[in-house]
């Protein structure tokens, strides 16, 4: 067993893990972060995506020990019902979530994509979520919502701010 320290959604947590445990397993089973979903456990579906130091990764393909000392952001770290992220607001308003099981991974992936490219085209959004499978929506309203959120974020950014 090894002791690791993670910053999960801004809160410092310490836990002991087996060296072979995945970040996904530790988040869900040891840290009760069940908002991170498990769809395939081999990097095919993107349901378990989280941000590791701001970069979107499949947490089923990372070992928990690799995240030692680093910041993990899940969908709960993007916003709350009281302080929603524009992506979350747009997903609600435009009906982008159906069964919702892919949405936590979808949202953190889009969050990272909008950080990198604040003014994406529809095609760029589709490319950003190319590794996040959704079986319900056909992706149409997800792309709509991501674009709406990007617009809202651009409008709210102070003029002259760096992108």
């Amino acid at each position, binding site marked *: 067993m090894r002791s690791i320290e993670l910053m999960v959604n801004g809160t410092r947590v310490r836990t002991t893990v087996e060296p072979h445990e995945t970040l996904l397993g530790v988040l869900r089973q040891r840290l009760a972060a*069940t*908002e991170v*979903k*498990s*769809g*395939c*456990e*081999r990097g*095919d*579906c993107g*349901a378990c995506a989280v941000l590791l130091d701001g970069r979107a990764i499949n947490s089923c393909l990372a070992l928990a020990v690799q995240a030692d000392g680093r910041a993990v952001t*899940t*969908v*709960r770290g993007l*916003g*709350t*019902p009281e302080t*929603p992220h524009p*992506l*979350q607001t747009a*997903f*609600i*308003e*435009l*009906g982008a*979530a*159906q*069964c*919702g*099981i*892919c*949405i*936590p991974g979808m*949202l953190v992936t889009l969050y990272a994509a909008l950080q990198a490219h604040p003014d994406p085209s*529809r095609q760029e*959004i*589709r*490319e950003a*979520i*190319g*590794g*996040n*499978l*959704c*079986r*319900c*929506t*056909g*992706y*149409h*309203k*997800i*792309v709509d919502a991501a674009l709406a959120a990007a617009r809202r974020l651009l409008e709210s950014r102070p003029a002259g701010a760096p992108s």
Partner: protein
Amino acid sequence: MSDGSAAPSTPGPGGFRIVGQRAPRPDAADKVFGLTRYADDFSMGGMLHAKVVRSPRPSARIVRIDSTKAEAVPGVRCVLTARDVPHNVLFSDVPGQTTTVGPLRARTQVLAEEVVRFLGEPVALVAAETEEAAEEGARRVTVEYADLPGVFDPETAMRPDAPRLEPTGNVISRWKIRKGDVEAGFREADVVVERSYRTPFVDHAFIEPEAGVAWLDENGVITIRVATQVIEHFRDVANVLGLPHSRVRIIAPYIGGGFGGKEDVTVEVFLGLLVWKTTRPIRLCYSREESIISPTKRHPFIMRYKHGARRDGTLVAVEVELISDAGAYAYLSPLTLLYGMVHAAGPYRIPHVKVDGVSVLTNNPPTSAFRGFGSAQPAFAYESQMDELARALGLDPLAVRERNYLRKGERLASGQELETAVWLPETARRAWDALGPPRAPSAPGKRVGRGIASALTSYGRIVWLHDWASAWVELQMDGTVLVRTGVPDIGGGQAASLVQITAELLGVPQSDIAIHIGDSALTPLAGTTTATRQLYMSGSAVHKAASELRATLITQAADLLAASPDAVELADGAAVLRDAPDRQVAFRELAVACARAHRPRSAFAIYQAPAGQVMDFETGQGKVFPDFTFGSQAADVEVDEATGEVAVLALAACYDVGRAINLNSVEGQMEGGAAMGLGYALLEEDRVAEGVTLTPNLMTYLIPTALDVPDVTTIVLESGEGMGPWGARGIGEPAMVPTAPAIANAVRDAVGVRLTRLPITPERLWRAMQDARPS
């Protein structure tokens, strides 16, 4: 609107406040904030983890099972085999079914007893303190097998000398439909088109695998919180355990996708057995590989179609043979085939029809319910046929369809009259026109094409199964409203639409309505979230209960306001005098007044669907379904001649949904259905070789990504003539049915080659293009 001749330019009777809006769903917020607790997001103190031991062989006799090594693994608490199951049989009846129809009844063993009939069949269960110990225990259950001859395709399985899965033979159901005289019909034909079509095994591939947690509650009730479309499976679990039905409770949290794959029993019976045996809480979640190799799939169909038409395109006869691969156990295969039979001639007027269908057991993975339920396979065939007929006659594919579309008041080949609006011409024309001007190829070596397909798809349960749903609506003492109904919400917005219906009738904002769903002990049963029936059935039950409560509240308010009930309306959480809006009673006061006056603040209602007689199985004549949804889809594709790769450039879908209760949800079904249909057309195939699934993960079993699916143009028409609330029809299943044939027809248009087998992979298309080249 009496038939398809007039265009639906107006949305029908209006005046809705909430119905028809793009209202955000009440469940959406929890989902986007990561707060929804799905089946596997729930845990309990002292919970054991379970694993299923599965057969590694497709056909074998079980010689011996030895669990001693498994029981010796530290942490293992329980190993169960067939011997430990009190009643080792599951019947695939439609829950609550009232009519026993021989061919519909099918049985499956809970755990394999003497033989295994498919690779992945459950043989034993292991429960342990940790998931790792359960896995280790499962590996150490020693099962000695002796291989038996297997049979892996339905045509071989029908031969008299084929290995038999059941003593009575491998054919588990035969259906037929007879109308007119097809031989006479073909004599009238100027052209005959005859082809065979094949469709593959398809996986539901919901992103949430089968999962659940179960425990023994303080009253000794086995409580199973599980990802299911059918909470009524509490009866099946109780029957297996030999317990009264009241001793098993099933709770369905919000489900991470269903599509028919959580319709049959999955993990719930295993959870029930292990709780019963250990009295400990149990968790069981399938891995993706288990989810793909073991539970039910969409049926592969072999379909032989022969159409005859006159020179002007008028259809005169069709002869159809459907063969469905039921896999190793019947599950709902006989029913699925019956659906296929009734839909087999498509939405067309054909005087002479002969349809024969057979469903056959094999040692392949079992097949059962999947969105479209036996109607998606024939749609691929009959819509390919319509295009080929048009080509043979030199006619426009759309024009040939328009000549033959059924109209309101006409009858299907099974004799069922179409009693509601049939807007097929509008849906086809609107979908086609939505694609805009023809596209040019994006580069040399690319070919573009356009295709159309129409379909009718039933919604609601077979009429002789006496379907019903119930719901309970209450005005609470704080003035808010509570709805209870046993609907499992699989992501289609099932619960949200019921809230919207309640809000419309009671004049309360949706934010003041709470809904409890999916609990077989505490919510009135509403039946299964299958067969595109929930908006129709539980929607009607909620409509009825809310209407009763509305009448009570208006009566009470009229008393308080000393006015006639006719003068009272409900709006914004209050009862208001229509002509004197300053005179009103807030719902909170109304609740107190009702209590004081001994008036109920709640209403319970049962909606019973109109019932019918069992069809005549000799002729296949009779009313089978409550109603149908009609729609069309059109596709633009681009084919790379060098690789055979197909890109879908545009998809348009147009349906008469009767009444859109939630426009976002309706469009969401149409978009998602088209995406699933695109996967069916081009990508998805569970490749099964000699009973072995070669595609056991989402790297080899390909579902569409955001880069495979174009934006889907959705056109929603509202005839107001469906069977559901305010004339709504169902859209869940219909939304995926025409996509694959529309894409196949577009590919044919692009490259001049007809592929009669799904999926249209680059390799298959490339080979077909090579074969078609003049040598």
